[in-house]
């Protein structure tokens, strides 16, 4: 578990109760958003499974004996979805993808890396992207496959790449 500097709110018990006062609540949710993004980024994770993460230190501060309820986590994530920072994977809304970078940002990041490594007009597997030696140190290294694909799709829309499948592998060609 990577070291993360918890913000002051993390040790403030009311932080773990969704505030009814609208102004207060807005501030609270904003703070949660930033904390979640920071945590996931630090731990190189992109998804949250509500059912499992209640015990994660992110949502559970044992030192003050406070944790977010599942409902509270859902509220936060839904709020993040409004600003495009998160999206549910399925209708059950148990698993969420969190875009601590937006899909566009990911797409641009990957494209820039691809260009910098002279991979234009060549094909690259997703495996290579995610876990290849070349991409170690990149932010998108170890990125969740689904998110990667979505990011690449957004690039595809811009005409900068093309997704393709071959031999049980998925690959992408950069232009």
């Amino acid at each position, binding site marked *: 578990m990577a070291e993360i500097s918890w913000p002051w709110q993390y040790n403030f018990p*009311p932080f773990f*109760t969704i*505030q009814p006062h609208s102004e*207060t609540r807005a501030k609270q949710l904003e*703070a949660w958003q930033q904390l979640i993004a920071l945590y996931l980024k630090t731990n190189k994770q992109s998804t949250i499974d509500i059912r499992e993460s209640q015990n994660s230190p992110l949502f559970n501060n044992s030192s003050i004996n*406070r944790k977010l309820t599942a409902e509270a986590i859902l509220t936060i994530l839904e709020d993040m979805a409004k600003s495009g920072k998160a999206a549910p994977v399925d209708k059950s809304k148990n698993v969420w993808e969190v875009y601590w970078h937006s899909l566009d940002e990911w797409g641009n990041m990957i494209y820039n890396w691809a260009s910098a490594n002279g991979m234009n007009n060549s094909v690259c597997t997703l495996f290579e992207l995610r876990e290849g030696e070349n991409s170690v140190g990149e932010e998108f290294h170890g990125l969740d496959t689904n998110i990667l694909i979505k990011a690449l799709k957004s690039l595809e829309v811009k005409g900068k790449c093309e997704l393709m499948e071959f031999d049980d592998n998925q690959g992408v060609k950069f232009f």
Partner: protein
Amino acid sequence: MDRFEYIDARLFDGENYVKRDKNVKIYDGDDKTQFVDGEVVLTSHRILWGKPGDIPKGNVCLSLHLYYVFCIEEESGGVFGLGGPKRIILHLGPSLPGKRPGPAVVSLYHYIKLSFKDGVDAAFYKALSDAVANKAWERPTQLTSLTINSPNASPRSVTPVSSKMRSGIVGIERSIEEQHRATDASISVAFQDLTKLMEKAKEMVSISKNISSKIREKQGDISEDDTVRFKSYLMSLGIDDPVTRDAFRSDSEYYMGLALQISDMMVAVLMDCGGIMSLADVWCRVNRARGLELVSPEDLLNACKLLETVDAPMSLRKFPSGACVLQLNSQQDEEVARSTTELLEQHGRLTPVKLSQLANVSVLLARERLFTTERLGLACRDESIEGLAFFPNLFLTTT
């Protein structure tokens, strides 16, 4: 015997001779008196008794005003009632001040008897009862002449008293007449002088309401115009028509109107007394302000419930203890929030129980205070298995 007066046997202006009889003896109650073997003269106003010859000469005689007599009856002389009625019993009202001196100052009895040696003349009895019933002394011409003469000015003021002494339908009719006369007098006095009018305004309004309701009863729906006209007359006199129940079609409209009125009325009052007032006090104030058309407690309660829907700056608040208050929305909350915030900053974390101890209020009231403070954004809540607690709102204060 104390109702009799000694007076010259002369007729007053307007007084007419009716009948005479002789051999008449007077009894005071059941007791014999010295006044025996006399003549009795019945006039339209009085009965005169005198020794034979005195009355025609105009000498001093006994005079009894007929307005003292409220009832007469006949009595038989003998033990066995043989020979027809011999006496007339006159039941008298109390002696009135201003009476001239008579044979007695006080009397044990409230009736006298005229004993007729020759028996009661039926015509005399009838004439007497007619004279008593006619009340000639109550006619206006009589009154003015009497005041000019003023041998006995008391009849004018005496008459209402004597009319009350009369029982039966006649008495009731008289009293109604009196009321009408008083109303008339009241109206004429009222319109002579504006300041008097202002005093009389209340009476005017009630009288007009009575009249309008009477009209309504008699004529049914047609008279809406009349009642409307009446109300417009009143309004032109400057008397406000307060919100009344019958002015509205349905109850809820009435309550809305009432809520608006209460809200207008109570804003100033509430600001004076710290922003909060018990509903009983509110009721007293509202009714005092309205003056005439009073509001029942139920109506007030129902109207207060609607205060929020009419966007009034105050609202009805029911405490868990059951007490209802009317509270200014702005005033009280800010005060409470301010003081609670101070306490929060002192102690860092407050539960309702702790606050109730600090602020010396009940736990439920303390809860309300914390909620209020939270509502104003000065506190934030912490819900956990430990219970509900509040902290100063660092979310908003910390940048």
